[in-house]
C-alpha cells in the first residue's frame, strides 16, 4: 500500500488525483527540532514539553484516486480536519509534498494557488460558512464572482448550481431563513458552481440531524453519479464513512493508521484503534424501534358501519396477510389477519374487528432500543407494530427490515 512507502517515490498512476507524501504539519516556532524529535521516536507530549510545538499531521502518505469519495476518519484531535486543509493550503504544510495532477501544491506560488482554489478545488464547511450579507444566489455565486467571471455568467451558473441541489426557488432568500439541510445545500451549490474537479468536505453533514444527514448523503451520491468528482470527505462518523466512502483513511494522533475500502477496514482492521470504531458502533444499541419502523403494512381505520368485507377486500388488493387496525386519530387498536377476520365474520360476532385481533402481537414502544426488541421481532410470525408514547401507530418492523438494518455495518 502506498501509505507505507518512506522514499517519497511514486510510480506514475493515471488514476491518482492527489498524491500525499511524507506530509507533516507542526504548529509552533521550532518545527525542525520537533521533526527531529519526532523521528527519534519521542511522543507528542514530550515534543510539546521541550519545543512548545504541537503535531497536527505526522508523516502522512497516501493517494487519492480520481473520481472516488475518499473519507478521512478519526476521533476529534486526530488531525483529520488539518489534513484536509493542507490539501488546499488553508493550513500550510510544514514538510512533505502534496501533488495534485502532478503539480506540487505545497510549493505553488500564491497566484497559482489562488487559481487552483478558484477553478479546481472547492470546499464545503461543517457550519456551512454562508456569508450572511448575501442572498442564497449571492452565496452560490461567490466563488465565480471572486474568480472574475462576468455577472451575467456567474449568476447563470450559480442558478444552475442551485437547481442541481433543488433550491432554484430560493435564490432571493436570506440564508438565515433556511433550515440546516438547505443551508448545506447552498454550501454544496457554492462549491459546485465553479465546477471543480476536487471537492473538500469538512464534516459537511455532521451539524445536521440524522434524517437530513442521510438525505444529504444520498444527494451527494446522486450528484456524484451525475458528474464524477474527486471528493475528500472528513467525518468522525463510521456509519457515514461506510455509507458513502469508496475508500476510507483512518487517522489517529496525526498519523494515518489505515487506508482501504470499507470492506478491508472492517475485515482486516490494522490496529485496535481501527477495531474500536466498530466495537463502538452497535447499530442495535444506537437505533430505536421508531427509527426502523416502516409504514408498509395495510392500515384500516376502524369506524362505525365498516364491515369486515371491506377490510378483506383491501388486504386482498395489496396482497397482505395482515392489516393494522387504527382509530380515527391514528391510535393503534390491534392487528387482524385474513384468517382471523374471516373466522370472526363467520362466527357472526357483533364487532368484526375486535374479536379478530391477533392475541400474540404486542406493540413495541418507539423509544425502545433495537437490541431490546430483537427477540420479540425475531420470534413473531408477523411484522410487529410500533407505537409512540400516546399509542399512535408509527409503522411496523418486519424481520427483513430488521436484518437489513443490522447488516449495514456488521
Amino acid at each position, binding site marked *: 500500500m502506498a501509505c507505507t512507502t518512506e522514499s517519497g517515490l511514486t510510480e506514475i498512476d493515471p488514476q491518482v488525483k492527489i498524491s500525499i507524501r511524507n506530509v507533516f504539519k507542526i504548529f509552533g516556532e521550532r518545527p525542525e527540532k520537533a521533526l527531529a524529535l519526532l523521528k527519534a521516536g519521542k511522543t507528542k507530549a514530550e515534543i510539546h514539553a521541550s519545543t512548545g510545538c504541537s503535531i497536527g499531521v505526522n508523516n502522512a502518505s497516501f493517494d487519492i484516486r480520481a473520481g472516488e469519495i475518499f473519507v478521512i476518519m478519526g476521533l476529534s484531535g486526530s488531525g483529520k480536519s488539518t489534513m484536509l486543509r493542507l490539501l488546499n493550503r*488553508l493550513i500550510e504544510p510544514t514538510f512533505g509534498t502534496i501533488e495534485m495532477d502532478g503539480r506540487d501544491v505545497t510549493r505553488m506560488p500564491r497566484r497559482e494557488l489562488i*487559481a487552483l482554489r478558484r477553478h479546481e478545488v472547492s470546499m464545503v*464547511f461543517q457550519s456551512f*460558512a454562508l456569508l450572511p*450579507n448575501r442572498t442564497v444566489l449571492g452565496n452560490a455565486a*461567490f466563488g465565480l464572482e*471572486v474568480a472574475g467571471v462576468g455577472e451575467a455568467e456567474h449568476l447563470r451558473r450559480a442558478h444552475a448550481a442551485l437547481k442541481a441541489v433543488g433550491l432554484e426557488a430560493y435564490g*432571493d432568500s436570506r440564508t438565515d431563513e433556511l433550515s440546516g439541510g438547505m443551508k448545506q445545500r447552498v454550501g454544496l451549490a457554492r462549491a459546485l458552481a465553479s465546477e471543480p474537479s476536487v471537492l473538500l468536505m469538512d464534516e459537511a453533514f455532521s451539524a445536521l440531524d440524522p434524517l437530513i444527514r442521510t438525505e444529504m448523503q444520498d444527494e451527494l451520491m446522486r450528484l456524484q453519479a451525475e458528474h464524477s468528482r474527486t471528493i475528500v470527505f472528513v467525518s468522525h462518523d463510521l456509519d457515514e464513512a461506510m455509507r458513502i466512502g469508496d475508500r476510507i483513511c483512518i487517522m489517529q494522533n496525526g498519523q494515518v493508521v489505515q487506508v482501504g475500502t470499507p470492506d478491508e477496514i472492517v475485515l482486516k482492521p490494522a490496529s485496535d484503534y481501527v477495531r474500536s470504531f466498530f466495537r463502538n458502533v452497535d447499530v442495535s444499541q444506537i437505533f430505536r424501534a421508531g427509527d426502523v419502523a416502516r409504514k408498509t403494512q395495510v392500515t384500516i381505520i376502524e369506524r362505525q358501519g365498516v364491515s369486515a368485507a371491506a377490510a378483506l377486500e383491501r388486504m386482498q388488493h395489496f396482497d397482505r396477510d395482515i392489516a393494522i387496525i387504527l382509530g380515527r386519530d391514528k391510535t393503534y387498536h390491534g392487528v387482524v389477519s385474513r384468517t382471523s377476520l374471516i373466522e370472526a365474520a363467520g362466527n357472526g360476532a357483533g364487532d368484526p374487528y375486535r374479536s379478530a385481533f391477533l392475541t400474540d402481537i404486542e406493540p413495541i414502544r418507539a423509544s425502545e432500543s433495537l437490541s431490546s426488541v430483537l427477540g420479540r421481532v425475531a420470534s413473531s410470525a408477523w411484522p410487529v407494530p410500533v407505537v409512540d408514547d400516546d399509542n399512535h401507530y408509527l409503522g411496523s418492523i418486519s424481520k427483513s427490515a430488521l436484518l437489513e438494518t443490522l447488516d449495514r455495518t456488521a
Partner: protein
Amino acid sequence: MTFDIGDGVDSAVNYILDNFAPLLDAIALAIGTVTNGIQGVLLATPFLLGLALFVLLSLWRVGIGFAVFTGLSLWLVDHMSLWSAMMETLSLVIASTLVAMLIGLPLGIAMARSNRVAAIVRPVLDLMQTMPAFVYLIPAAMFFGLGAVPGTIATVIFSMPPVVRLTNLGIRQVHVEFVEAGNAFGCTAAQLLFKVQLPNAIPSIMAGVNQTIMLSLSMVVIASMIGAGGIGNTVLTGIQRLDVGTGFEGGIAVVILAVILDRITQSLGKERAGIWRTLLRGAAQPQATPAAAA
C-alpha cells in the same frame, strides 16, 4: 537627574512651525474647505427644511415615536434661537467624523491585518483618548490659527480612537469559517477584505462611528475655546458671564443633537426599523414563506 521633556516638545513645535508651514497650510486649507463647505450648506438650509429632513430621517431609520421627539426638540432649539449655532456644531461634528473615518478606517484595517501595527497603534490611541484636550488644543491653535480648523483637528484627535478600535475588533471578530471560506474560494487579500471581512464587520464599525460622533460632540464646548463656534460658544458665554440660564440652554441643545445623532447613527449598522421595516417585510413575505414551509 531630571529629563526636561517640556523643552524638547517646545523645540519640536517650533521646528514644525518653522519648517512645515506649507504643509500645515495645506492641511488647514483641506480641512477648512470641508468644514466650511458643510457649514455653508447647513447654514443655508432654512429651518423648516432642516426640521423636515431630520424628522423624515428619524421616521425612516428609527420609528414614529422618535420622529415626534425629533420634531418637538428641534422646534424647541429654534425657539431658543440656537438653530444656526446647532448647525455650526453639526458641521463641525460631520467634518471631524469624516476626517476621523478617513484616517481611522484604514488604520483599523491595518491593525486587524498585522499584530505589529496593532501593538504600535494601540498605545497611541490610548494617548489620544486620555491626554487632556487643552494640552493639544494650544499647539493646534499655534499650527492652524483660531477657528473651525483647529477645532476640527482637536476633535478628530479626541474622537478617532473608537472607530479605529472597533474597525480592528470588527474585522478580527469575523467568524473564522467566513475567512476560511473566502480563502478556500480563491479570494485575494483585497477581495477577502471587501467581500468577506468588511461586510461582516459593519455592525462593529458603525458602533465605532457612533462613538466617534458622540465623542466629537463632547469636544464641541472645549473646541469653542479656540474659536470653533457653534453651541459651544453659547455654553462658554454662559460660563464666562456666570449666566446659568444661557449655559443651560446651550447644554440642552447639545444633548438634543447628541440624542438625535446617536439614535440615527446607531440604526445605520442595523436593519431598517419601525414603520418602514414593517412595510418592507410585508412586501417580502411571499418570498420568505416557502422557506419556512419546506
